[in-house]
């Protein structure tokens, strides 16, 4: 009971409990309980018998559901696809955001406020609508993009099996770059001007200053961005859902979240869906921990 002698009464455990209770109650109900329940569900399965037109029995199957999920080619394929998605998405989006923020921060940039507003605009558009807009922008016959390319002699089907992944990456890039530009730009503006002046006096060009001074100073903000982006990637559901209605290239199990949704609502296998959700949650937690540890190590360096 090593209670720090509080100089203020009414700031101790009991009052804290009062203030914290609403949040943790909701947290328990909306996060802890569902995960615990799913964990339990994932250890059971429905077993039918005969031709399957009678009833089903619930039985304990241990880790069988997890085995089935990992044995499913579509699930592991979806995980691989997510990895590929990250590989394309993160450099594009982060790179784009960094470049844009550096450009905004350049002394010769004009109309900064306007540019900030415009670059952040896509973020005000909900993900569903963004995906819908781009679905139309990828559809031949409707899309100005496709028309422009066709008039230049290039026939590109953004929605076929080869291009659909980068096309969906593009939607996410469009949605999120502006958001991260604002974060990075604010961090850049916090760089003390004296340092930049000193560098200028020493003869460093704008680009040198950007690379060797500004960039290292925004690394902390950058690592937070990468962390949240990685977590966000595992959430991928909305954009593939919408695009799947426009093309056969996005299957119903294209990413793990869609796989879990399909298991629950198309195949009526709630137990497998529960197992898949647990796997996704564990992956997310693991990935977040890894990224946090990696970035804190980088920051210390």
């Amino acid at each position: 009971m090593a209670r720090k002698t509080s100089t203020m009464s009414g700031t101790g455990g009991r009052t804290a409990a009062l203030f914290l209770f609403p949040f943790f109650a909701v947290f328990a109900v909306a996060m802890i309980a569902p995960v615990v329940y799913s964990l339990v569900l994932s250890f059971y399965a429905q077993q039918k018998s005969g031709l399957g037109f009678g009833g089903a029995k619930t039985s304990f199957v241990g880790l069988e559901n997890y085995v089935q999920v990992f044995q499913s080619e579509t699930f592991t394929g979806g995980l691989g696809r997510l990895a590929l998605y990250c590989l394309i998405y993160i450099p594009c989006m982060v790179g784009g955001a960094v470049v844009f923020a550096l450009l905004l921060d350049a002394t010769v940039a004009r109309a900064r406020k306007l540019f900030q507003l415009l670059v952040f605009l896509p973020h005000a558009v909900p993900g569903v609508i963004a995906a819908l807009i781009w679905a139309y922008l990828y559809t031949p016959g409707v899309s100005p993009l496709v028309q422009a390319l066709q008039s230049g002699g290039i026939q590109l089907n953004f929605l076929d099996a080869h291009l659909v992944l980068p096309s969906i990456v593009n939607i996410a890039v469009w949605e999120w770059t502006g958001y991260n530009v604002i974060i990075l730009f604010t961090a850049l503006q916090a760089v003390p001007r004296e340092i930049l002046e000193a560098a200028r006096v020493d003869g460093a060009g704008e680009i040198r200053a950007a690379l060797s001074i500004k960039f290292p100073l925004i690394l902390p903000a950058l690592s937070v961005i990468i962390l949240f982006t990685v977590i966000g990637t595992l959430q991928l559901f909305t954009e593939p859902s919408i695009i799947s209605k426009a093309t056969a290239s996005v299957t119903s199990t294209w990413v793990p979240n869609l796989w879990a949704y399909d298991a629950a609502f198309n195949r009526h296998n709630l137990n497998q869906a529960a197992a898949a959700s647990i796997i996704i949650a564990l992956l997310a937690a693991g990935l977040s921990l890894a990224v946090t540890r990696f970035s804190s190590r980088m920051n210390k360096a």
Partner: protein
Amino acid sequence: MKRRHLLLSAASLLTSAALLSGCGTGPATTPSAPSGEASGTITFWSSLAGMDKVAEKFNASQDKIKVKFETIPNGGNGGYAKLSTAITAGNGPDVSTIEYAQLPQFVSNGQVQPLDGFIDKANTVDKVSEQIRGLVQFDGKSHGLPYDAAPMVMWYRKDLLDKAGATVPKTWEEFEAAGKKLKAVSPKSYLASFYPNEPTLTAALSWQAGAKWFSTEGDSWKLGLRDEATRKVSAFWQRMIDNKIVKVEQAFSDEWSADLANGTLAGVLGANWSATGIQKRTEASGQKGKWIAAEAPNWGTPAGAFYGGSSFNVTKSSKNPTAAAKFIEFLATSPEAVAARGNTGSAYLAYPGLTKEAQKAFDAGYFGNDIYAVFDKAYATILPGWQWGPNWDVTNTALKDSFGALTTGGKIGDALDSSSDATLSGFKQNGLSVKE
């Protein structure tokens, strides 16, 4: 300290609740015992056009039962997922519309009630053909009243065939020959399309060739997605695709609509219900009178299959199955229901005598021949003995997903292989015994 305790006990309470309630399929609703009088308000979900008018007619024609109609997306757009989820959660409709391919799955999941005891069997189910009856009866009980009987039918641009010097194909060999003639005069045209998003059509083609994708041997299932007949069909269509006689595109997509409108497509492999879709998409480009219906080409002896077709059912959620059953009888067997639907398409119905009524409501003047005569001929040659398995969704999804690779080098045969595997493991995961 106290809070931690609270959280832990809450968690354990929930866990025990979960274990006790089984697998959380929601509070079970037991169907009420059949009451003598059929009355009350019932809900009716359907994605078929014109059903709102049928519900209105029913409400107007009597005042004991009131039907509340709600339109839902069709199967391809999540309609069945919505239905199934609602039934599981306990707030599904009283009356549902389920296609023959999906019905066994709903029955197997216990989501549809048997109708025996609620309907007048002799005057309804027993009057349709044996083949159709087999599509709605499981475990010795009827789980729905059949509505349409949708024979697979081929539609052609007669003028384009004439220009190419080809006759209307009667066999698949003639189809290939006609396709080659067509390519010779207009290389950019196609004789038909292969739809990656309609595995039910691939099933129909296999059915027509004599395949049996799902059959039962005693208490066990037997899969036939890789049987000889299916392989023959898959090899043929792969050749058609490779030789560009047939184009791979999604049915009902913008691309398909555009191809119909500008004459790139000289044929549509569909069913009786394809008529409205073809008309809507081609009338603006002056193709009236140019489209004809024809029996689908066969493998030497006339044979046909069903492509689509729905039944009406009483779901497990229904607390008033007597009233629901009465409404279903109206829907599936009464001429007034068909007349009320109006001109929503060239329906071909299962119950004897109703098709004449449907024919009256439909203006077939757009087409170049007597399409209903063709439907009759196609219906007469349906091969008996086809069954749908208890988890069509697994096969359907697997086929759709693998067909997605057809435009980038995938092959139909490979798709059938992987789908067969997926179906097999689906069966096993449910604890059913199955062999191939």
